[in-house]
Structures are given as structure tokens and as C-alpha cells.
């Protein structure tokens, strides 16, 4: 009997279990999510806590030499460069540069391998570390092993070369080891050379050396100065030397400023008091002054907090930067393989990537470049490069920022609302909506958005206007209230005084 009951119950329960499942399946089938969350994309909020975001970039593919039909494996590639739809990889260990063309969204085709050029006796490369193509179609290659920068035209004919400056300011005992370079619109060459800490070496278009650019100012506070005066020789040698830092990589943005990054930073002073000596990312103008705008809650330094275990400890060491045409720049961190996106004001937009063997993670990332909105990250230990493309979330973020920057405030607010629909954690979305409301004159609503995300300056702006409007609207009531507040005690006081005088007047005394 019990078994029968049990079977009956089972059948009954089966229906009760299957029915809701069926209903859920039917309902769910209309809300299919197409993009899979692949990695961890995150950002830091106002308090410095990690908040996770939906992926802003997804991996299109990881390309090794085999995928690209190149005969030998890439050996210690140092740098990538993008020119229109061409991708150049400096295959340093194999003394050559590989030129690829992007034929479709996912495919790259090899165009040619550049390992020699005509028109010069020493027509081969020895450890080329960087390549740059100027706007007028000339190739500039850092030929580190041969101590020169070579300028070729697109048919690989030698045009000229830049060698060690013979100037007195350049220490002639040091050899000239150019490692990275950028070329500006008139053909001037700015290059980073190993062991030179005076800044970027600047050449004119005809090859003459015209000095150094952008050495960081050496600053130290008076306590260090006094200590240095009083210290003994041995102690002084052990002190950190107060010299400018060497740069590690440079990139020229669409406005002509040079973004430079350095890995020679110490994390002691960074978060609370970012001094000149410890800025990892700088934006140099043509006079060499750092004009990077850092108005975000946290300085432009990559990660703000990190674990203290093993290889992944320590602050982010920014090894390369690339800048999109809309001003958003990406910094590549060597320590944990993270890529940080910052907007023009220095607010972090999102961060993704990591260390590992999965697609989208790196072993030793050395270089980052952009092709349109897509990102290419070169992994030297893995001998491959990874191609990222923006997801719907990433595209919406860029659209919202670009719309606001071009003045379309209302549409920018709507785009930020769609960003918010995808990501409830996005601080910039709330602030973006608030700013668009501020421009439209809706101060009360703007204040609500700013208050949510602790944006003091914008809240103060909105509040000022709101208060002005409120007072102007209700000025009559306010004046009345103030008058009443002042007048009533006066009247009451007068009343009491008169009453007192009547009470104590002589004529009423019997």
C-alpha cells in the first residue's frame, strides 16, 4: 500500500515539478543572452572597492605564427604597430618585421616579411625593437643591435638613418640603443634609448639631434634634502638616487601629444600624493611638460589595490599605452596582465585581462595597439597576439562618451541609460546621465544622480542652480517668513512692555 501510494505521489510530484520547469523554459527562451561573460571586467568605485562589470571587450582570436602562415615561430616579439589595416610585428629574436593585413573581422593575412632592405651596406636588421610609419608613408625602424634608427620607404628602399648624437650633452661613452620611437607629422623622430634617463631623444626630420624632451623634474621634499646633507657616504649611496626616470614606451595620439609610460615607480607615495617622480603615465606636450588630466577619483596608475602574494604582487607596471581617436586611452599592465581604459579626464572606464593561458589572458604582455576600436595585445612569451573587439556594452560606453563630447547631451543621456540597463555598477553612467540632465537644466534630477555616486563638484554645480531657481520662485514666501520671524518677537516684546507699564503706572495705584 505504501509503495502504491509512493508511486502515485511520485507521479503527482512529477507533474508539479515538470510544469513549472516547462513554463520557465518557455518564458526564458525569449530572453536569450547572446554574449557570454568570458573574463572578469571590473572597475574601482568611489570607495576603492572592486565592482564587476559586463565584458567591454571580447576576444576575437589569438593568432600565433602557425595561424598566420609564417614559417618560423615569433621569437621574443617586442612591439606591434598598426597603420590603417596593416599590422606590423617586430619579431626581435628573428631579426625581422612581419607585415600582416587584416582581411576580415577575424582573419589576418601575411603580406611580407621585412628582414632586409636595399640601398645600404648593412641592409639587415639586428634585433629590431620598434617600428613606426609616418603620415607620409615612410617606415622608421629601431635597429637596436646596429645602434641606429633606419628610415625606409614603403618599398624597403633605404632613405636615411639616425645614429648616436655627437652632441656634448649625450654621454659618448654610452652606446646608442634605441628601443622605441614615434614620428610626428613633420617627420621629427622621438625615441627612447636604453640607459638614457634625460628623456626622449629628439631628432629633426633631416637627422640632426635637437635635444632631449620630457625628462621628469627631479623633486624631493626638504626632509630628504636635510637627511642627505647629514648622511654619511655609505648612507648616501644607499639612498634612492634623485634622478629622472627612464621611459619604457611612448605613443603619439591623434592630437600630437606623446603618451609616455614608465615602469620605474615606487608605490609608497602613489595613492595619496602622486609626485612627479612617480607618475607612471604621462602625456607630454611638445615642450616636454606633462599635461595628463587626472581628475578621476583615483590617480592614473592601474590597479589601486593588489594582493601581496607571489608574482602578482606590487603596483601595476604600465608597459604600453595606446590611444583611440576619441581620446580614450588604454594602459597595459605587465604584472597582472590587466588592460585599463581611461577617458580624457582620467576616470577609469573599465579594466579587463589577466595572467594565464586562456584566450584573453596573457603570459607576458608587452605591447598594445588599436585598430579602429579593436585592440591588439602582443604576448612575447606566448609568441602570439590577441585581438579584442568591443562588445555591445563597450560600444555603448564609447558612443555615450563621444556623443557628450560632441555636444549631443540629450542623446548622450539616453545612451548612458542603455549602458545602465546593462550594468548597474557603472559609476560613469550615473554621472553621465547626471551631466546630461545638468546641461538640459533639470537640476533636481541631476542632483539625485550625482548624490548616488558621490560626485561632489557636479552636485555642487547642480545644487547652486537649483537653489537659485528655488529662491527666485519662492522669494515672496521667504521674505514673508523672515519678516514674521523678526517682527513677531518685537511686537510681543513691545506688547509686554506696554502691559508692564500699565500694570505699574502710578495712576492706577490706589
Amino acid at each position, binding site marked *: 500500500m505504501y509503495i502504491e501510494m509512493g508511486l502515485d505521489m511520485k507521479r503527482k510530484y512529477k507533474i508539479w515539478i515538470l510544469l513549472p520547469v516547462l513554463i520557465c523554459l518557455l518564458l526564458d527562451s525569449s530572453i536569450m543572452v547572446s554574449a557570454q561573460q568570458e573574463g572578469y571586467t571590473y572597475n574601482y568605485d568611489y*570607495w576603492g572597492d572592486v565592482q564587476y562589470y559586463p565584458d567591454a571587450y571580447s576576444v576575437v582570436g589569438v593568432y600565433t605564427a602557425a595561424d598566420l602562415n609564417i614559417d618560423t615561430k615569433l621569437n621574443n616579439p617586442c612591439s606591434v604597430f598598426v597603420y590603417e589595416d596593416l599590422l606590423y610585428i617586430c619579431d626581435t629574436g628573428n631579426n625581422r618585421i612581419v607585415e600582416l593585413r587584416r582581411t576580415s573581422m577575424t582573419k589576418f593575412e601575411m603580406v611580407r616579411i621585412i628582414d632586409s632592405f636595399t640601398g645600404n651596406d648593412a641592409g639587415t636588421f639586428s634585433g629590431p625593437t620598434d617600428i613606426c610609419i609616418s603620415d607620409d608613408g615612410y617606415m622608421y625602424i629601431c635597429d637596436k643591435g646596429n645602434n641606429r634608427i633606419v628610415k625606409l620607404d614603403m618599398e624597403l628602399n633605404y632613405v636615411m638613418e639616425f645614429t648616436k648624437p655627437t652632441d656634448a650633452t649625450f654621454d659618448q661613452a654610452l652606446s646608442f640603443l634605441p628601443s622605441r620611437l614615434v614620428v610626428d607629422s613633420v617627420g621629427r623622430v622621438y625615441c627612447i634609448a636604453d640607459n638614457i634617463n634625460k628623456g626622449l631623444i629628439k631628432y629633426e626630420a633631416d637627422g640632426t639631434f635637437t635635444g632631449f624632451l620630457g625628462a621628469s623634474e627631479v623633486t624631493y621634499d626638504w626632509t630628504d634634502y636635510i637627511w642627505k646633507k647629514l648622511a654619511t657616504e655609505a648612507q648616501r649611496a644607499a639612498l634612492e638616487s634623485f634622478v629622472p626616470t627612464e621611459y619604457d614606451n611612448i605613443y603619439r595620439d591623434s592630437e600630437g601629444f606623446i603618451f609616455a609610460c614608465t615602469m620605474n615607480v615606487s608605490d609608497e607615495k602613489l595613492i595619496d600624493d602622486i609626485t612627479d617622480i612617480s607618475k607612471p603615465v604621462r602625456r607630454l606636450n611638445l615642450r616636454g611638460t606633462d599635461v595628463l588630466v587626472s581628475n578621476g577619483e583615483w590617480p592614473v596608475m592601474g590597479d589601486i589595490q593588489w594582493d601581496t602574494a607571489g608574482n602578482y604582487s606590487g603596483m601595476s607596471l604600465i608597459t604600453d599605452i595606446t590611444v583611440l581617436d576619441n581620446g580614450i586611452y588604454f594602459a597595459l599592465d605587465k604584472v597582472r596582465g590587466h588592460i585599463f581604459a581611461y577617458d580624457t579626464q582620467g576616470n577609469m572606464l573599465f579594466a579587463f585581462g589577466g595572467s594565464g593561458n586562456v584566450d584573453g589572458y596573457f603570459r607576458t604582455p608587452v605591447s598594445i595597439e588599436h585598430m579602429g576600436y579593436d585592440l591588439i595585445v602582443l604576448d612575447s612569451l606566448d609568441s602570439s597576439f590577441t585581438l579584442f573587439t568591443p562588445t555591445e556594452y563597450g560600444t555603448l560606453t564609447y558612443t555615450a562618451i563621444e556623443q557628450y563630447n560632441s555636444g549631443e547631451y540629450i542623446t548622450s543621456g539616453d545612451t548612458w541609460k542603455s549602458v545602465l540597463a546593462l550594468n548597474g555598477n557603472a559609476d560613469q553612467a550615473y554621472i553621465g546621465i547626471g551631466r546630461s540632465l545638468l546641461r538640459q537644466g533639470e537640476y533636481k534630477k541631476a542632483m539625485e544622480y550625482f548624490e548616488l555616486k*558621490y560626485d*561632489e563638484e557636479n552636485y555642487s554645480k547642480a545644487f547652486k542652480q537649483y537653489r537659485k531657481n528655488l529662491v527666485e520662485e519662492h522669494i515672496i514666501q521667504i521674505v514673508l517668513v523672515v519678516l514674521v520671524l523678526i517682527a513677531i518677537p518685537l511686537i510681543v516684546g513691545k506688547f509686554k512692555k506696554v502691559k508692564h507699564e500699565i500694570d505699574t503706572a502710578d495712576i492706577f495705584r490706589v
Partner: protein
Amino acid sequence: MLTALRNKDTYNHYFKTLKYSLYVITHPLDGTWDLTHEKRGSLAAANTIVILTVFARILKLQFTSFLFLQVYWEGINIFLYIASVLFPLALWSIGNWALTTLFDGKGRLKQVYMATAYALTPYPLIQIPMCILSNVVTLEEGSFYAVAGVISVLWSAALILCATMQIHEYTMSKTVLFTIFSLFAMLVMIFILLIFFNMINQGVAYFVSMIKEIMFRM
């Protein structure tokens, strides 16, 4: 006690002593002298002022505009906030009284406590209106808020100094000296409390682990 509560005079006396605190803050030396020697202050009013100070501190958290005070709500421990007023007050009263007793001070513990409590009056008096003010000013006008906050704390500190002077009948230089010594006395008390806490912790842990081991062996 009920008869005392029903008697209207008790309430009159209470409000009079509460109003007297306003006299104290504007006449520091005269006010603190009369507080104890002329019996113009009362313990009930002193307790009220302490409660108001704690209240003002907590109100500040909730009602100050975020322009001036950004509160990490997940990390707030309200007991710590309340203790941040009561604990130093208790430590100071006991430390000051104990130290000055050794050095010819004329103050009793009740007097020291009452005077310190009355000296805290500027804090709630200024901070509570400042809470309201912070909601109607912008960032640029915020210097008023900051200055008022500093004034409230400094005023209270000056009043405590004057109170110490009048109660123990010291000269000014002796007052300053013994205030610094009282601060050291507070540190010593904190040190002893820490040691006590640690030892009791270890003692309890010893017995607990012994009982656990016995239970496991059963």
C-alpha cells in the same frame, strides 16, 4: 523619587541648571567656579549635555550633506561612535581627578565630571545647526561649515581647560602642565585596560580549550 518627579520644583531646577550651561560657555571662569561652589549646576543637566553630544555626533553622520562628509555606510560601527565620546570623557574625568588629588587639587570626581560635561556644550550647540546648514550651501561656501566645526571643538577644549583651573584652584601654568599629565594618565589607563583585556582573554581561552578537550575525550 516619584514625589520628586511630581514636584514642579525639580523641573524648574533642572531647566535652570540646563540654561546655566549657556552662561558657562560665555563666562568660562566665573561660570565654572559657580558651577560647583554656588551649586548652580546639577548632575542631571550634565548628563543631558553628554547625551546631546553623543546625539549630535550620530546626527552628523546621517544628516550632513555628502558634499562635506562621505560616509562609508558598510564600515560604520555605531557603538564605536558612541564610545568615541563616552570613553574619552570617562577616562579624562577619572584621570584628571586621580592625578590632581595627588597634586593638591581641590576637585572631587563629581565636580570634575560636571564641569567637563558643561564644557562640552558648544559641540552640540554648533554641530546640530551646522548639519542643517550643510544641506543648503554649495562646495565653495563650504568653508563656513569647516570653520564652524573647528570652532566648536576648540571652544570646548578651552572650556575644559578653564574648568580644570577653577575646580582645582590652580594657576594657568599649573593647569596646562597638569592637563598634559592627565593625558598621560589616560594613556596609562588605556595601557592597563589593554593588559587586563588580554589576560582575561587568555585565561578564558585556557579554560574553554580545557573543557573542549575534556568533552572530546568523553
